[in-house]
């Protein structure tokens, strides 16, 4: 479903992604972990072309993302993206946040978009918040609205960049539960996360990055008990024993 081939990305002279190769089959959930500055955000941002690349190719559901002839706006409707800082539109209600893209990009009728938006918000436990503005919602609620906003486009793939890192501890679970629900429904996902419990329990593969490279790709059981690389071992000993 997502195919990343020989991708290189530089910021000036700084090589941030160095020969990245990764295949993510349909309905798989991949966790992307690694120390800060490893290039995790940059990697998932290249998958929907929020960042360009210097070399290589990324193919999502048959479309070459960085190819000049690709209609990137169309491809992006199939890739949901959830940001660490939510990035909800502060001047729109929760429901309008969810419906603005279906109405204006997919040309969905307003009525239909609102019906669907309400259902989505309800399914994420926000049925009583449809008319609230982002500033009236907690962080966990805002992030769930952001997930609903991404799902409203019926994406084939969902990308999460540290979706719980900006949240108070008591709100992390509600957002992770929403992502769990999506995984059960068969959504193809990449989740950048520091939640090791979540990664271990929910994900098909753990992708460990450091210094712009993919150091190791392993199933969770192996990764958390007996990783191949020294980098992963020392990283795990730091994050698991703190």
């Amino acid at each position, binding site marked *: 479903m997502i195919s990343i081939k020989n991708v290189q990305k530089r910021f000036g002279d700084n090589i941030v992604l160095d020969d990245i190769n990764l295949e993510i089959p349909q309905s798989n959930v991949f966790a992307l972990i690694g120390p800060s500055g490893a290039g995790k955000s940059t990697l998932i941002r290249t998958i*929907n072309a*929020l960042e360009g690349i210097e070399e290589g190719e990324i193919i999502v559901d048959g479309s070459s993302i960085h190819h000049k002839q690709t209609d990137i*706006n*169309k491809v*992006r*409707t199939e*890739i*949901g*993206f959830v*940001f660490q*800082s939510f*990035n*909800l*539109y*502060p*001047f729109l209600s929760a429901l309008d946040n969810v419906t*603005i*893209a279906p109405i*204006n*990009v*997919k040309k969905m009728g307003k009525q239909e978009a609102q019906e669907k938006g309400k259902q989505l918000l309800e399914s994420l436990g926000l049925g009583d918040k449809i008319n609230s*503005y982002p*500033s009236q919602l907690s962080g966990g609620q805002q992030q769930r609205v*952001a997930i609903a*906003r*991404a799902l409203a*486009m019926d994406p084939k793939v969902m990308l999460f960049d540290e979706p719980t890192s900006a949240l108070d501890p008591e709100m992390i679970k509600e957002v992770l539960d929403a992502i769990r629900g999506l995984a059960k429904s068969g959504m193809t996902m990449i989740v950048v996360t520091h939640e090791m419990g979540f990664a271990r329990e929910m994900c098909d593969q753990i992708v460990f990055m450091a210094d712009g490279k993919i150091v190791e790709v392993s199933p969770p059981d192996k990764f958390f008990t007996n990783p191949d690389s020294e980098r992963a071992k020392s990283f795990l000993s730091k994050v698991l024993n703190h």
Partner: protein
Amino acid sequence: MYQPDWSVIPQNMGLFLEGILLTLEISALALVISIPIGIILGLCRISKNKIISFLATTYIEIMRGVPLLVLLFWIFFVMGRFLQLGPYWSAIVGLAAFSGAFVAEIVRAGIQSVPRGQMEAARSSGMSYVQAMRLIILPQAFRKVLPPLASQFIILIKDSSLVSVISVVDLTLVAKNLVATSFRSIEVWTFVAVLYFIMTFTLSQIIRFLEKKYNSYD
């Protein structure tokens, strides 16, 4: 001792009213024209295309560097000669061109005050750059630019008094003409100052009200 005689004011109320109307008309028209000019210039200024942003920056620098009085003369005597503009349209074009440069800077600051994540969220949902600007960025920028835009309109009303030099019969020229015939300069100029103040003060109150209304979401 000078004996003020205020009767010159009520006797010429019709003239003052015509002057006020023309001042408001010219300022409002100039503002209405300068807003699209400003939005386009402001967008050009932040454009990634170097030539486009250079041209916009150059225009803005010229407008900031040339005194409005000189610009009005130039448009009336140079450009107006070829385009048959006449005083009324020369005044509006001059004020709009001048004000557009300041509106552009206001628009640019407004757009840049919207966090980058807003554009990224909009683009990642499949919106084109233009859609994202129109649906997500400009509505937020608009709320931020309302106060400085209001100040710009107030400045425009005051600056519009300069159009009297190209013989547009605005409030200032009405006053000048009246002083020339009645010799009541103290009464006339005091009254005209009060009239300008009432116009700008009323406007700033309206804007304050609008600001409250539009900022209710946060």
